[in-house]
């Protein structure tokens, strides 16, 4: 693990100009680039990658939507238009391995791109960071967050969608011993309400918002921190905590932010 004075993130086109191909593409995703709150997660994850001396680059302004929200909303035409363009671009940069913080981007690269000709080794940041912790490349100091209790909300497209439940929990365990579970966890977890392109539309009429139902469940555990590992879950849970007027006591943080906060940097 390296101490860093000035963080610099390499950009794919710059490396290509120097004839270099990084091992990983860090796919930032639209929320990672544009969502005010979630940009902090992107920053945290990039810092962790730099501390761990991972050989990576981002596409920067060349990145474009991989078509996931369009596909889930039923616009297969627009999805495939985006997908075939993205595949061409990644071919140009000779991308073999992708890391991303977004479970939706992760899912579509892993499950739906191969049929269209895009074959990559895709890793979600929870899995990637957990490996770095397990290998001892990143080490956390348990004293920093030891008084905080953490409850983890499973993103649908990581959990049920791809059967990945434990790495994020392992990261949480590496920063505190106070781990709480919601009654509905892992494959029984309740959706935050944003999936299936709900993020971009008004909710249909009902007697409650899904994000309120889920946030209440998280708040009822009494945890100090609600940990998430998906940009859309973060929007929903953060909104839910504000809606319940609990933002002073309870924080919604991404697992990358938690790990960065607890990072032990040897000087």
């Amino acid at each position, binding site marked *: 693990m390296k101490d860093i004075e000035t*963080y610099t*993130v390499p950009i794919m086109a710059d490396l290509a100009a120097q004839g270099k191909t990084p091992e990983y593409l860090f796919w930032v995703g*639209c929320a*990672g*680039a*544009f969502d005010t709150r979630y*940009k902090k997660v*992107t*920053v945290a994850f990039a810092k962790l990658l730099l501390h761990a001396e991972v050989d990576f680059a981002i596409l*920067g*302004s*060349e990145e*474009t*939507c991989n*078509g996931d*929200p*369009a*596909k*889930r*909303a*039923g*616009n*297969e*035409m*627009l999805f*495939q238009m*985006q997908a*075939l*363009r993205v595949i061409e671009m990644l071919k140009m940069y000779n991308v073999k391995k992708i890391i991303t913080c977004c479970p939706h981007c992760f*899912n579509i690269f*892993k499950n*739906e791109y191969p*049929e*269209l000709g895009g074959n990559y080794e895709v890793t979600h940041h929870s899995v990637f960071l957990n490996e770095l912790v397990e290998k001892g490349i990143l080490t956390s100091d348990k004293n920093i967050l030891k008084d905080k209790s953490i409850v983890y909300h499973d993103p*649908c*497209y990581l959990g*049920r*969608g*791809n059967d990945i439940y434990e790495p994020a929990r392992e990261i949480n365990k590496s920063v505190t011993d106070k781990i709480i579970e919601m009654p509905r966890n892992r*494959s*029984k977890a*309740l*959706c935050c*309400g944003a*999936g*299936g*392109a*709900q993020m*971009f*539309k*008004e*909710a*249909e*009429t*009902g*007697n*409650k918002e*899904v994000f309120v*139902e*889920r946030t209440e469940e998280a708040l009822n555990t009494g945890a100090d921190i609600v940990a998430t590992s998906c940009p859309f879950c973060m929007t929903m849970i953060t909104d839910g905590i504000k809606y319940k007027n609990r933002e002073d006591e309870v924080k919604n943080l991404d697992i990358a932010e938690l790990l960065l906060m607890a990072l032990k940097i040897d000087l």
Partner: protein
Amino acid sequence: MIKQVVFSLVLLATLAVFAYSMKRLWYNFSLTKKQPVGNWGKRFRLMLEVAIGQTKIFRYPLAGIFHALVFWGFLVITLGSIEMVIDGIFGTERIMSGTGWFYDFITASGDIMAYVIVVCILFFLSRRLFIRIKRFYGVEMQPKSKYDALIALKIILLLMVSLAGLNMAYCQMHPDDHVGLFPLSSIFAPLLLSDLSTHGLHVLHEISWWVHILLIFIFANILPYSKHFHVFTSIPNVFLSRLEPLGYLQNMPSITTEIRYMLFPETAESPTEASVARYGVKDVGDVTWKNYLDSLACTECGRCTDNCPANITGKKLSPRKIFIDLRARMKEYAEATRVNGLEYNDGKSLLHDFVSTEELWACTTCNACAQECPVNINHPSLIVDMRRYLVMEEASAPAGLNAMFANIENNGAPWQYPPEDRLLWLNDLNKS
């Protein structure tokens, strides 16, 4: 001899009615779209685990254990039923008794499971009659669904009571020289049947035998018209279910051809006009045979709806309803075209007349429904297929989604930000 003739005629009638029902179903399947199947080894393991092993039913532990016991009991008792049919045709008595330990195994397990199933069915009946379990209610749960469940449970109860009667009468008639093992009936018989004469026992034996076998025949022919058809369809449905992770949503190959041609006209093959008849699903003619099999395998347990975030928060969506609707619409459409020919259009469709857009747009594609379904029905893929019709054929997506589509087309992001702004977060890297 008379018994053999009567039995054989009844059996023929049963098979004829059943064949008629299957022929009608075959016609329904012929209306649906093709979808290839492969990977048989993996499917076989999945079937052993989810269908035979009942793994997903245990996600509701109490109902799960009772259901699994009934299911496993059915498996061993079915072997005994096969013997009864052979005996009935040929006038033999316990034809399989020459199989030694195997016969001891099937008679002993069948005997124990008959009583176990009686207890389980009493649990299921009382749960439906005396407790209000939320997932057994909902707009799609018409009175037919309720009676359907109660009739099936009562038939199964009678099946088991008659089997117990048969076993007990047999044990009491042959206390020392019976073939096979009847661990429970040999205990109960002296307690319950000691007052009966030899003739009385014989009558009880015959009545139990006929009641049991006739109920099987009747039940088998009610099933294709009932939600309890899952007795036949659930094992094949699990076997044929999707093997991809739940997060996977099928791509549309016809669109790939079109877009390749559009983006790379020099190298791509040109799309044929016949390749796309219709985008997405509007009616039962657009669904795959697997979607329809899903609807036949659905036993309306409601675990999907019980776990649906939209349904939990009072939205109209109920994943179970989508498949009950598919089954109902297929029945209506198939009957209409059977009479009037395939060109007939009754002016109705699955989408709109059965499933409303409000239901479809409430789905978060979270896959809680598919995760819970004990027979591996995949609800989100059909929901998205109907969304595809709404978006690509009707252009009738909600306003927010149309704005999202436009943003992706114009600036490559679901929000209205220019691509250059994708670098802005880098400015925050060195701010503390």
